[in-house]
């Protein structure tokens, strides 16, 4: 178990190091997400009643579509120079590769969320300290990173991978995005924990289901 964790960590750290030097994923996702936030906040203004309705949608539109941009890059670095073959040659279960790549994508999207969420809260005149929102973001990001990483591996072998990924990813990720939007709306409205519990449960169930499915099927996705 310790060896498996070491290998997941090795893949994760390799991706972090490469991203730290190129800044390809975080920069593109961040710029896109910020643009979405700014454009929507100007479009809808800052009227409290309007904000309560549209703010959750704005945040999750920024994170979801920004995430798609990021997922498009996750396996491209492995495709170039046939590095995926180098990974496949390693004496590890294919699920180890999936979890290593997932850890990277989750961290990249979460890093973007850490930057854009305070900006989102300021732009929309919302309180800055919302720990429940942080929990929703972590759980929902894990869910759509689980699906996004898997479909990134699927899309990498297709010709129109930039188009293929959102087509594959978005319909599958809809439940977690809808649940995240609903839970975020309840947090912004200042409703108690009990009200958002059902949406949190949906997100957690989604996370578990897709983490298990992706772990099991990843081998068939990457094997020739």
């Amino acid at each position, binding site marked *: 178990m310790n060896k498996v964790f070491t290998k997941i960590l090795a893949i994760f750290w*390799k991706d972090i190091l490469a991203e730290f030097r190129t800044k390809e994923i975080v920069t593109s996702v961040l710029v896109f997400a910020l643009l979405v936030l700014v454009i929507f906040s100007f479009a809808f203004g800052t009227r409290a009643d309007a904000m309560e309705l549209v703010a959750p949608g704005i945040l999750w539109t920024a994170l979801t579509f920004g995430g798609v941009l990021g997922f498009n890059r996750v396996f491209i670095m492995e495709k170039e120079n046939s*590095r995926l073959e180098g990974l496949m*040659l390693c004496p590890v279960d294919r699920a180890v590769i999936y979890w290593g790549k997932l850890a990277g994508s989750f961290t990249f999207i979460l890093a973007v969320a850490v930057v854009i969420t305070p900006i989102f809260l300021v732009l929309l005149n919302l309180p800055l300290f919302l720990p429940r929102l942080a929990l929703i973001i972590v759980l929902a990001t894990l869910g759509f990173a689980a699906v996004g990483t898997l479909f990134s591996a699927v899309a990498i072998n297709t010709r129109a991978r930039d188009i293929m990924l959102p087509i594959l990813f978005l319909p599958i990720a809809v439940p977690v995005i809808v649940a995240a939007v609903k839970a975020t709306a309840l947090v912004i409205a200042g409703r108690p924990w009990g009200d958002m519990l059902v949406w949190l449960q949906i997100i957690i169930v989604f996370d578990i289901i897709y983490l298990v499915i992706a772990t099991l099927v990843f081998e068939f996705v990457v094997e020739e």
Partner: protein
Amino acid sequence: MNEEVTASSWAIEAWGLTKSFGDRYALRGIDLKVSRGEHLVIFGPNGVGKTTLVKILSTLVKPSAGSVRLDGIDIRDKPAQSRRKIGLVSHQTFLYDDLTIYENLKFYGKMYDVPDLEPKIREVVSWVQLESRLYDRVGTLSRGLQQRASIARAVLHNPSILLLDEPEVGLDPHAITVIRDALGSINTGSRTVVMTTHNLERGLELGDSVIILDRGKIVYQASKHEVDTLNFKQIYDQCTGIGK
């Protein structure tokens, strides 16, 4: 041939290897046995199945039919254990451009559970004479230097079988000479080597035995002592239909 007796005495055993992509056959029933420490060279023009054969032996591609054993282990039964025995050098380096040679080797070392990784990295880097470039990013290196780093990557976990798939493709003559020296320095001991190449002279020099592939089949097989080196070009042309 008595399969039971020979099962564990061969580094590589392949029976009836067939690979098809749709209705196109890349390999058609390849039988192959390579003894431990043997250097086998596979010749053949482009598109005859050399790379497909190497990819099957390295577990990267599953055969449509047939089976492979590496050191007596069936690669389908114990793929991870089989992969530990293999080092692959191809014209792709599998290295990450944005990481240094050291970071690449450290990454692969962890993936292969290489014990005493730091001294091992120093050792393999000295074999390929890249000590002074160890902390340079791979993307900043020439193709020849990258290929030498790739050789270091392939032998880092001390594989008993080294697969070389046209490792000299795209290199200038000087780089080829340096790569040859690097390969010479790592081929010590009982390492089994399977190499594909177009270079007949180089292949005959390295190989203990040679085979020629044509249209997915072995059309010529001989040990070094049996090969008519003077007329090998003619034999190759006849076997592959070149010049007809």
